[in-house]
């Protein structure tokens, strides 16, 4: 073992003595930062993963969107391409827009999506998200409401609500009166996504076409891919064959704005958490600088015994590196342990505060999601070890600058 490495380890773990407080505190500081970063990034990843799953569950992996509308010949051409694709398992047409919904003089302006249930159930497992009513009762005179929308209006399954289409405005310009459409609430769904749960109405494709005067035209298709198919490759392959009136988008592209917000949040949290490790690195620098000052004469001795300046510097760099490696290993172990017991921990906090039921009600989860990306772990490892090693560079530079004769003379 090269002597700078040997001496670095001996200074961190002296023979026959307990591990110095400085070593323990420095390793614990880095470990704490790494554990916190790992847990936070994994939980953020868990929420992101759940949202991805929810989006795919409600939209399919790929959406084929019309540039404006797909009339029957264009829709037939799209369906031909989809049916011939080796990646596509099922697809279902949809039409979507906005309506005004009224219940007992209380209005709401939700997004509405009409679909052919017989086809859509092969693409989207809607029944999984139904909290009341039944999809079997969905016909051209009924709708399904999202949970928060139903709650805000005070609507229950079996109530009748009125739908006002934007078509009414167009007719009004022609001095015609289009009456609202009274429909029955056949079910209520909840997917766990604020935006969808707060203002979405699902209905049959025919009802949607009637409300918007679309006749047989549709806005696009939800597409379910075969297991293992890559959504980006599949979308690219479909785009090579689809007519110009339609374009295939992956679930990610179709929700790019929302994904960008999620990614931004995640990156910001990562950025803020890095400061914990930076602070730990500063504490390493400070402690090692104190060591350099305390050991000035020993550093002089090393020079007098034939130790070159770069080797003396390496001795302190290795200490920073070791603290980084040990702290990172400790932090990863602690972080993964915390993630493993996260539900117990959340349960414990819930019991201490508002109770598990209230906790689940307010935060809308009873199990904390976690999804650890190998890339995140790699970034955390590299950043943490690098920061600790750089932290050792300043004291190393100070030590290397000391002239043996001056150092030996110091008091």
């Amino acid at each position: 073992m090269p002597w700078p490495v040997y001496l670095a380890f001996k200074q961190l773990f002296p023979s026959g003595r307990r591990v110095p407080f400085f070593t323990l505190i420095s390793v614990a500081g880095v470990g704490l930062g790494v554990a916190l970063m790992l847990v936070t990034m994994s939980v953020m990843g868990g929420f992101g993963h759940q949202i991805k799953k929810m989006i795919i569950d409600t939209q399919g992996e790929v959406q084929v969107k019309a540039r404006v509308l797909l009339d029957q010949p264009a829709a037939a051409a799209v369906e031909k391409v989809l049916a011939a694709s080796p990646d596509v398992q099922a697809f279902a047409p949809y039409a979507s827009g906005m309506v005004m919904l009224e219940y007992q003089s209380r209005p709401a302006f939700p997004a509405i999506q009409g679909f052919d249930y017989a086809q859509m159930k092969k693409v989207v497992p809607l029944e999984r998200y139904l909290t009341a009513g039944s999809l079997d009762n969905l016909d051209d005179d009924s709708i399904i409401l999202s949970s928060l929308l139903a709650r805000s209006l005070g609507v229950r399954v079996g109530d009748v609500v009125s739908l006002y289409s934007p078509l009414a405005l167009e007719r009004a310009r022609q001095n015609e009166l289009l009456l609202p459409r009274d429909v029955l609430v056949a079910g209520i769904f909840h997917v766990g996504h604020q935006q969808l749960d707060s203002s979405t109405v699902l209905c049959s494709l025919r009802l949607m076409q009637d409300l918007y005067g679309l006749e047989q035209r549709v806005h696009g298709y939800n597409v379910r891919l075969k297991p293992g198919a890559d959504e980006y490759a599949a979308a690219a392959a479909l785009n090579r064959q689809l007519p110009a009136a339609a374009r295939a988008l992956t679930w990610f592209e179709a929700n790019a704005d929302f994904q960008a917000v999620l990614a931004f949040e995640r990156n910001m949290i990562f950025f803020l958490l890095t400061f914990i490790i930076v602070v730990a690195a500063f504490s390493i620098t400070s402690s090692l600088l104190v060591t350099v000052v305390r050991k000035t004469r020993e550093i002089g001795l090393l020079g007098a015994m034939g130790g070159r300046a770069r080797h003396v510097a390496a001795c302190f760099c290795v200490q920073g590196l070791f603290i980084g490696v040990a702290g990172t290993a400790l932090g990863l172990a602690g972080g993964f342990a915390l993630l493993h017991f996260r539900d117990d921990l959340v349960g414990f906090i819930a019991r201490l505060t508002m109770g598990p039921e209230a906790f689940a009600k307010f935060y809308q989860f009873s199990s904390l999601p976690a999804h650890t990306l190998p890339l995140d772990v790699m970034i955390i490892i590299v950043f943490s070890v690098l920061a600790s090693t750089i932290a050792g560079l300043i004291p190393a530079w100070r030590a290397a600058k000391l002239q043996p004769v001056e150092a030996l003379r110091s008091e």
Partner: protein
Amino acid sequence: MNVRKTYPSGDRTLAVLQGADFSISAGETVSIRGESGSGKSTLLNILAGLDRADSGELFWGAEAAHKLSLGELTARRGRFLGLVFQSYYLIPELDAFANVLMGARMIGGIGAAEKARAEALLKRVGLAERATHLPTQLSGGERQRVAVARALMNRPRVILADEPTGNLDERTGEEVISLLLEVCAEEQTALVLVTHNPGHAARCARHLLLQAGRFA
């Protein structure tokens, strides 16, 4: 040869060494005495290649050390010289055995031969039983004996000892000087002993007195 060294002291220049000539043969023992400020430590630092003379020549054996860079001097110092200091300067995290072995470790690694030599040296200085003790567990005299063993580890041609008994009581100081002289004789190593103690100086084969930067 003809070593001169000055230091700035406020607005003035302080001439510490003013043409000091010094040489030592293989296995010879030389003592250097002088009052405080006479330039003893400066001379020793220049001999050790830790400091540069303003002028003059320094030879380590046949090699013109004054022409070497500080880096080259550092690389050669570990093999050519052994150093013993007044304050021992043992590495506190290492036990006595590891401290002795450190000299070998720093000039190219250690094997069975080096370990055997370190054991033998510790035995020779009477500390075989205390090999695993840390410096804090040793007395001043024992620490200095470990320092002597460390200085001899790489079989240097010369040992430079800068007031090695300065921190020791009289009896322990005598023991350390005796030990130094004995082991240097056994190893055929030259010894330069800087001391204030006339009794210790008298035990060397040659005695020099440094006065106002010159040998009297």
